[in-house]
């Protein structure tokens, strides 16, 4: 019964979209992959370096990897994860987003200091403060039972 209810809810979500789509043609399709980054030369972290600021057929400006992109990429990534997947495999994202990894990203990749990976340095002491200030930022990654294994030895 529950599955029927959820299926009905999904269909209810899909129908308005189908109606909205009527009359629109020639929508752009993302390619399967992006050319290898190593072939793109300097300053490749800014999509607009090659793609410009054109809004059509696809707007890449949102995905420019600014200096704070590691900390604030989620709103851009929510738009369509396939844009991330053009350059990054699930394995790349798993360094941070996996359900369970023992090595925090800055420990797994200690030499890649330009990426501003989370929890660099003495985070054990700083997390007492930042966790009190903004516990939602902890929960986003450590909120499920598997990933909270990092927290439980001390916090229970």
């Amino acid at each position, binding site marked *: 019964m529950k599955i029927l209810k959820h299926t009905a809810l999904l269909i209810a979500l899909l129908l308005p*979209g189908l109606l909205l789509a009527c009359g629109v043609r020639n929508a752009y399709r993302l390619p399967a992959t992006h050319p290898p980054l190593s072939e793109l030369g300097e300053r490749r972290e800014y999509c607009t370096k090659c793609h410009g600021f054109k809004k059509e057929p696809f707007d890449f400006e949102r995905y420019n990897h600014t*200096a*704070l992109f590691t900390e604030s990429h989620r*709103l851009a990534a929510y*738009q369509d*994860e396939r844009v991330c997947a053009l350059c990054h495999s699930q394995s790349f994202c798993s360094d941070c987003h996996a359900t*369970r990894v023992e090595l925090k990203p800055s420990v797994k990749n200690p030499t890649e200091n*330009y990426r501003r990976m989370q929890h660099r340095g*003495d985070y054990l002491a700083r997390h007492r403060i930042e966790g009190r200030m903004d516990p939602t930022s902890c929960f986003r990654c450590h909120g499920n039972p598997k990933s909270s294994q990092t927290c439980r030895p001390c916090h229970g």
Partner: protein
Amino acid sequence: MQSCRSILIVVIGLFLLAPAESPAADLHVASETIMRGFERKIENGKELDAVPVYQYLQMDYGNLASPGLSLHVNGWGRLNLGDNYNEKGTAGELLHAYMQYLSTSRDLLVRVGRQYVFEGVAKDSLDGVYAKTDLVPALTISAYAGSPVTPGAAEGRQGDLILGGKVSHSRPGLYDLGVSYKYLADNGKRDEESVGTDLTLLLPGSVYLLGHSAYNLVSGGWKEHSYELRLPLKQFSVHPFFQHYSYDDYFNNRSNSANPFRFLKDSGNAMTVAGTEAFWYLSEQQEYVLRFKNYDYDQRFSSSQLYSLLAIWKWKIHSEVGAEFGRMQGNDAENSYYLGRGYFFWNQKPWFVTGDLMYVSYDKKIYKQDSSLFASLGGGAKFMDDAFSVKMSFDYSYDPYFDEDYRWMLKLSVPIDKTFDTSFSKK
């Protein structure tokens, strides 16, 4: 571990049975072997030498750069060579193992197996099916269903279910709007049920509004509203943002989660974060970033502020020097600190050198220490036409938890890329 093996067998079996679309198949294997060394002091004051070795293995096979079928596997394992570390002598996890199909017109994407689904309110790992289609122009529809990996195997996986999807409508140059839904049950009990929206709205003057809202159907309240404007002003780009979280609706008090989250779930608190990130692109080589965040709470704390200034000088890709100064001005001394950081990355193919120095001064002592220092020196090189690479790093720190801490890490990476002719093997 048995479920991981079953997932692998099913996914590889499906892949072998599927008809080949292309006469060539690409193979990409990435092996990372990481050895770490550090001291641990345990409860009775005894010092242990931990030397854990991690093996990460990623394998992708099939039509990797073109539409068609492909197989993707990734996992890690750990073995302790020194004293015991993290309770168990060994550990590991199958992070993903899925078969993917991308149609020739790139209108349809299907994944079967263990995978990470990232769709609006869903950021979950599941064993199941995921499909995404653009068959109707301007409209993207995705749906997924399976058994969630996250609840853990302690109570078994019977009755565990995750399902949901997302509908997005796009008008290039105007907006992208998505509505997503997620349902998650643990042992037949409804654990999470959420709907959410994702928005990109392009305003006059190339101004963007990006946003995300999520509603908790279990508690009947808004979990989160996060919105950000992006204002381009010649060499500047200014990103003011606003976020609001209701703790009762955002956190979850399921029994096998961590204590602080269960406590916060019923705290009745709410947090509003507002601030700005400002980027100044002085030249191709120089960037300056100013960040300000103000935290406000309905209960418990008075407001707090975070200020940071970041300067980056780049002379070529991945060769840069950066400096950062930050201040967390908490509601009292216990929640306040100054942070300073400097780093460099010097890439001189085939080798590179890196350095990192971070100093934090706490307004109130933590375990009788009012500061911490972290220093890291690293380097590496690629050999035999990039056939493998070696990276090393040495870290030193003193902080409230460790008086004098020395750590080292050695990483060996081996990427293999091959293309096979499969026209005879799959007909």
